[in-house]
């Protein structure tokens, strides 16, 4: 295990639960939301990991946990050999500059009362506390050019920019402390299609030029496929399948991944009409009292028996770098239905 900790980012059985507290009158527990429920992952320096899954499956919670905005309930997280989850709340501030986050909503992620210049200078000073005057101005304008904004607009306020431009400012702010790891939590979901492509291009370019490591969160597999080297598919707080982007999209093993890929609308009428879909049943169950065993059983479109509810599937490497939650009903559904 110890060599795994030498990797860039290592998560070991990370769980993040939210205790909903007790009912005021009856004193009965309202339950525990198991938003992230045992995730182990290793990310190499310089790679982009895509994280996909339905709404509420815990993608944002996992991102926030890695960012140490929420501390994990249990499990460990190492970044470059340093155990983040063991650093005290007091000392965590000093290491935060090494990992930054880009948020979903470009309208809520910038302080409306601060100019772009103020926002960026403040962030730059976390890495260069003594930077001021011309040096600071120069750094700010360099950052703005890097993200494709005109430095002459640095005295403007967020509301004077369009959604796409604000997202660029937010990216610049995340880059300002010169982080090694960037977590982008649905950075294009709130943007119009024509603007999405600008931001995707930008992120891709920055990543290769600066050698950043990136976790890219989205519910849209087509976007994730385009930008990621590897993809992790999340369901109800756990990872069901992990592998190369191409493998996951083109040859998925798990039935859930198949349902996800077949749900992506393809902008090609002939292909759309000819392809077969795996349509899931019902909705994602509540993470408060998640289903036992293979947590996918209530929605499984394939035949299964009681065993599925009982055995917790192992997460195994079925081919080099291709991991799957190995439930025999989910992984070989054709065999299960026919035989």
């Amino acid at each position, binding site marked *: 295990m110890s060599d795994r900790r030498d990797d860039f980012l290592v998560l070991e059985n990370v769980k993040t639960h939210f205790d909903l507290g007790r009912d005021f009158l009856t004193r009965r527990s309202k339950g525990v939301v198991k938003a992230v429920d045992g995730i182990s992952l290793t990310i190499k320096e310089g790679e982009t990991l895509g994280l996909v899954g339905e709404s509420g499956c815990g993608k944002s919670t996992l991102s926030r946990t890695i960012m140490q905005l929420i501390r994990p309930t249990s499990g460990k997280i190492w970044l470059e050999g340093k155990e983040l989850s063991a650093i005290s709340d007091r000392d965590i501030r000093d290491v935060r500059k090494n990992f930054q986050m880009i948020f979903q909503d470009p309208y809520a992620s910038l302080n409306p009362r601060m100019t772009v210049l103020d926002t960026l200078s403040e962030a730059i000073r976390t890495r260069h506390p003594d930077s001021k005057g011309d040096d600071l101005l120069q750094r700010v304008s360099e950052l703005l050019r890097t993200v494709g904004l*005109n430095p002459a607009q640095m005295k403007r306020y967020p509301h004077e920019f369009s959604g796409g*431009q604000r997202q660029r400012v937010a990216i610049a702010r995340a880059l300002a402390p010169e982080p090694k790891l960037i977590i982008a939590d649905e950075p294009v979901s709130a943007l119009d299609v024509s603007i999405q492509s600008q931001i995707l291009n930008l992120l891709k370019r920055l990543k290769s030029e600066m050698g950043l490591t990136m976790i890219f969160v989205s519910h849209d597999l087509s976007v994730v496929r*385009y930008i990621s080297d590897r993809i992790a598919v999340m369901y109800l707080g756990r990872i069901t399948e992990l592998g190369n982007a*191409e493998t996951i999209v083109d040859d998925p093993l798990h039935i859930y991944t198949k349902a996800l890929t077949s749900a992506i609308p393809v902008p090609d009428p002939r292909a759309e009409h000819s392809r077969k879909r795996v349509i899931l049943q019902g909705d994602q169950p509540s993470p408060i009292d998640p289903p036992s065993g293979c947590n996918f059983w209530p929605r499984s479109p394939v035949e299964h028996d009681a065993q599925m509810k009982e055995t917790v599937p192992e997460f195994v490497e079925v081919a080099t770098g291709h991991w799957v939650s190995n439930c025999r009903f989910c992984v070989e559904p054709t065999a299960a239905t026919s035989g």
Partner: protein
Amino acid sequence: MALLEVEDLATHFHTREGTVRAVDGVSFSIDKGETLGIVGESGSGKSVTCYSLMRLIPEPPGRIERGVARFDGQDLLQMSKSDLRHVRGDRISMIFQDPMTSLNPYLRISTQLIEAQQTHRDIDNKAALFKAIEGLEEVGIPDAANRVKSYPHEFSGGMRQRVMIAMALINEPDLLIADEPTTALDVTVQAQILDIIKQRQERLGTAVILVTHDLGVVAGNCDKVNVMYAGQIVESGSAEQVFYEAKHAYTRSLQKTIPSLQEKGQELYTIPGLPPDLTKPINGCAFHPRCPFPKTGAAETGRPTLKDVGDGHCFADCGYCDSSGSIEDVLAKGDTDDIQLPGEGVKA
């Protein structure tokens, strides 16, 4: 005869900042059992078109300036308020974008579904409740007989949207207008919802207008497509025509911005600039300032109109755009630098 025929519809908003020409001369038609897709980026006037047909535009500031919308021989835009009430919710119904706010949170689902029927039909409570349960079952609500008495907040977003569909279809309308019915939902739930709409449509022979900004949704679900830009239709035709033989520079650019259609290593095309300010008069093609294949020449006054280029495939040809140009060439030239020019930020 077409079920609905819209001619030269124009809806403007008279605001303090000026007149917003949200919809400015839109014509299309839809037959029984057909699905018509309306696509376009945010602000192109998709919703305003739908709301205008239902006469749900807030007046003031909005006003339907001109146009005809013949539905089964009657003009929806001239109809008296009381006649309109008979059409709305009975022969034409609408599904809205936000499943969280389009059901009344204080009333049981059953109450809302029964009310929807009794407004238009002489039907007793029992029969109406029975139909309500049947409707919920058809849109895939498990255990519908027990859950029909629930309140909307007890359902998830996807379930609420299904209830909305059940409600919209309960009177078996001739036309269903769905304004981005799945934008707020997950792809998996989206697939379920679109599937349900399709099944119900096949059974009841309903015509559907499906508004979306997702070209993928259009491709899988629509027979005909209208592409809207800045308040007008710039291209229309069958799904195959619009996807495989796109003529208008905007349609072609839009396709090149979608990640799922592009090779992985390839840079995505980005449409430069921003949509035009709808309070200012537009001369020539509205897309001209952002066009990747502009030809030199002066913009004419007025906007180009839709012309048929064969088999019902229409597009607004302005004549100042090189329709043989390909985006690949533009990308290869590498002048799609995404650095913005000064003064391009929009003032709120």
